[in-house]
């Protein structure tokens, strides 16, 4: 594998990431084929940067600081049109300043709208989503958060989703 973004990380973080990768075991991977060409698809984005609107509940950083093995498994809805002025990034494992300066660095809703204007996709969905990406025990994420996001995406008529890590 020629992609090596570990080189952007300090030594300790690298060790933690490698340990995490080695403990994961992939189960059966689901696969839903794209039903129509991209230029007819409504597309939603999901960021793992831990983005919450200023008028919404923040991700729980305090509990993670008390218990570093825990990560907030909830999600937030980020309506299309939300900008860096309206939201904050709560992920404690990344430098939030880049996404805070320009939300499209982590949740490219404006770029998606531009791709829709070009005709590359049909349209950006009305709602996009964020979770916080550091979750060692994914039970709640898998059994509650992801199905709830999927449900909302279906209600919005989303045809395809792009997951963007942070």
């Amino acid at each position, binding site marked *: 594998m*020629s*992609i090596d973004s570990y080189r952007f990380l300090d030594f300790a973080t690298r060790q933690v990431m490698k340990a995490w990768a080695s403990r994961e075991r*992939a*189960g059966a991977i689901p696969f*839903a084929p794209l039903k129509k060409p991209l230029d007819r698809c409504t597309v939603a984005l999901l960021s793992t940067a831990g983005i919450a609107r200023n008028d919404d509940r923040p991700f729980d950083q305090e509990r993670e600081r008390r218990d570093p093995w825990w990560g907030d498994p909830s999600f937030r809805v980020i309506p299309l049109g939300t900008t860096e002025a309206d939201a904050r990034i709560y992920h404690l494992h*990344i430098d939030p300043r880049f996404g805070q300066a320009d939300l499209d660095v982590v949740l490219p809703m404006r*770029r998606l709208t531009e*791709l829709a204007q070009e005709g590359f996709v049909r349209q950006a969905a009305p709602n996009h989503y964020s979770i916080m990406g550091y979750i060692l025990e994914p039970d709640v994420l898998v059994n509650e958060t992801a199905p709830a996001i999927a449900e909302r995406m279906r209600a919005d008529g989303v045809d395809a989703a792009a*997951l963007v890590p*942070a």
Partner: protein
Amino acid sequence: MIEASGIPTVSLSMIPDLTRAVGVPRLAGISYPLGRPLGNPRDAEGQRAVLRALLDVLPRATEPDTYVELPFAWPDSPVKARNESKDVPPAPIVALVTRKPWLLPNLYSGRIPQREEELCAKD
């Protein structure tokens, strides 16, 4: 889970070995620093190119565990990227295993220490 509900997904990843270990239907690896998956702030053209390449994996993939490496190179050196975030405090788990390296094997084994022990542990 989103995929299982019938909505096709594609995942971008700066750490494709981690994302692939979790298991995703379509994966696009990119050599960008954490925190900047689409590129630098206000680089609209670069961000759009990454998003376009990412979405383009959707129609091309015909089976699960499809992996594509995106051809984007980070404009600066890794050292510069690391230095730009030098003053950011380490994540709590990174600080913890730096302080208590003997806990690192817990991460590898998946045995998460008892919460009470951790909460009561005095440094």
